[in-house]
């Protein structure tokens, strides 16, 4: 099996764009002062200090598209309440409450802006709702990986998006890559969203 040129490219993008704490602080001094075991290599400090103990929900960026380049927003994911500390459904899907906040949207007179979620294969999708005047929308979803996007429509009475896509983003699990790419949206620079 030979990797495609796209896959190699994706790996290169990954490698160059990685500023991960693991690689970035390798072999740094251990701030806790705990010595490494005798004969062992120095500890690798894998964790930066500074973001400790804040409530830090996952937030992903929503970006404009080629047809609407200036738009931007974000999607915040939290887990809904549950008697258990882990919220999954009876198929094992993690359940998330998502809140879309659009910070900049060039609205066209008479248009409505509808938010959607779709699985990467585009074989299933759901309408999340319509962006109101406050450009904010909340919904619940229990999918593994999904795209979130906003389309510009003449009406909300539609089963599938028809107008242009004006904002788009990926679920955090969109970062789940193969070792050298990421499936059907291989050409997409997913780093853009995070």
């Amino acid at each position, binding site marked *: 099996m030979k990797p495609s040129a796209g896959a190699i490219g994706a790996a290169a993008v*990954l490698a160059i764009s990685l500023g991960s704490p693991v690689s970035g602080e390798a072999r740094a001094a251990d701030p806790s002062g705990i010595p490494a075991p005798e004969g062992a290599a120095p500890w690798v400090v894998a964790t930066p200090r500074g973001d400790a103990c*804040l409530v830090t929900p996952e937030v992903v960026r929503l970006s404009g598209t080629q047809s609407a380049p200036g738009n931007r927003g974000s999607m915040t994911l939290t887990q809904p309440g549950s008697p258990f500390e882990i919220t999954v459904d009876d198929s094992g899907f993690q359940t998330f409450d998502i809140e879309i906040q659009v910070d900049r949207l060039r609205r066209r007179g008479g248009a409505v802006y509808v938010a959607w979620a779709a699985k990467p294969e585009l074989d299933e999708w759901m309408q999340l709702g319509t962006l109101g005047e406050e450009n904010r929308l909340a919904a619940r979803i229990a999918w593994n990986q999904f795209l979130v996007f906003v389309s510009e429509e003449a009406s909300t009475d539609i089963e599938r998006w028809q107008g242009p896509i004006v904002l788009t983003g990926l679920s955090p699990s969109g970062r789940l890559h193969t070792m050298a790419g990421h499936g059907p949206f291989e050409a997409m620079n997913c780093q853009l969203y995070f």
Partner: protein
Amino acid sequence: MARRVAAGAAFQALLWLTGAPASGQQHAGHMMATDSMGAVWRMPPQPIPMPMMLPGLMGAVPGVTPYLPDAGHDPAMLPEAVFREVVEMADGDTLRLKAGFVRRTIGMRTFTMYGFNGQYPGPLIRVPQGAEIIVLFTNHIDLPTAVHWHGLRLENEFDGVPGVTQDPVEPGESFMYRVHFPDAGLYWYHPHHREDIQQDLGLYGNMLVDAPAADYYGPANGEDFLMLDDLLVDEGGLFPWGREAAIQTLMGRFGNQLLVNGEPRWEATVRRGEVRRLYLTNVANTRTFNLVLEGAELKLVGADVSKFERESFVSNIVLAPAQRYIVDARFDEPGTYALLNPIQAIDHFNGRFYPQTDTLGIVTVLDEPVAEDHGEAFSTLREHADVIEDIDRYRAEFGRPIDHELELTARVGDLPSDIVAVMAIDTLYFPPVEWTDAMPMMNYLSTSENLIWIMRDAHTGKENGDIDWRFTEGAVRKIRIHNQRRSFHPMQHPIHFHGQRFLILSRDGVPSDNLAWKDTVVIPVGSTFDILLEASNSGRWMAHCHIAEHLEAGMSMVFTVDPG
């Protein structure tokens, strides 16, 4: 430097892609190293087809000696373990408890394992609330050990934690425990010394503490105790553990044979309309279960140390290691109902999720109706005034400032650098929960000597054994626990506080709306939980991650409750 490491990892990843065998086979039997007793390192079984190992790491084995119990001896010479007995005890009674070798037959295969009193699981100890019993424990296994009485607010010196409350009980030696049962509910006992080995080999049992009130729970026609576990086996038998130190410390030891009460399949027969009370305990080293009883109605009644304020209907039950839940199930129609564990596993190599469902048991429902129909009571969700009143005494403290903060993270030592680099790429995404061993080769090479899991006091910077919290008996403290998303390999951690009880006040800032007293809270990756700890029991106590291999890799601390 950073980019060189990452680029090297990407290059290694490409090598892996091009050089990896397309394989669906189990890679067991790839013998690599042995010890004098006959235990052998070989590649761990793979849950799904994936490359055996990074090409540059072929032949690598953990840097410790492989260990198997009583290796080299014929299991036929050992007594066959028998199914657990229920031991009903009264205040002042004495139980003799022996940890020893047993022969276990699981799925037509015979293994040398451990058992309490020759049973699997260990005896179910049933006592009235408020009782105190004496347990005369004797160690007849080949390792030092001790017995921890999980969840009980008992006297500190009998908590069974070597290095904190007692010395380990050496092979052939004995220890007397005085075990007090102040709270009604479901508990369990297990070793607290190399529990990655000893608990995995069958040393665990339940304790049920009955409340005096007959209607403490709603009515049920019967009850079942289910201890959920898994065991890692391959063509060579039990997969070895590390002798000097734990292996598989990265993700914990996931088994590939799921077990209920030590058996591959739980079976029960009930009558139509029956309400069964299920007492569920997760005794696995690291696996979190998502239980579904297909077709049955499920009502959640209680958790670790108490009932919930209010009963609720649920579709599934999520149990992390050491957690317990009490659930009523009703079977309306005749037929068979499967007990399932449906999860969304991750294939890190191919970068995808995939569904995985294991069948843990079958309930056969006869057409014959149950003699006493509790259907109406089952359909009514009870509010537990006793629990609400108990918690009412603490509600004024819910809004208190955070007293202590813990961050959960990891630090790597001399793990092979290729693994460290590849994981930097592979873990761009961290799922909230790891349900399976998604990277068995890397996990296999991690030990408690090359990886340290950390509980860090965010206020002082102290870590693990250096943390020195002190409380006065009767104090109530709010503790925030944050599981860092940005670490070497973030993973969920079930955090257990010994000898006390706590309430989960909020998750990621969202207040809990139905409380129960707990002793173990699982913190998904990236989450922040606020708990209210009632320091009600004096002594030096341990708090730790209940993933056995994470505990072995350092993830524990001690706190002191001074007499009030």
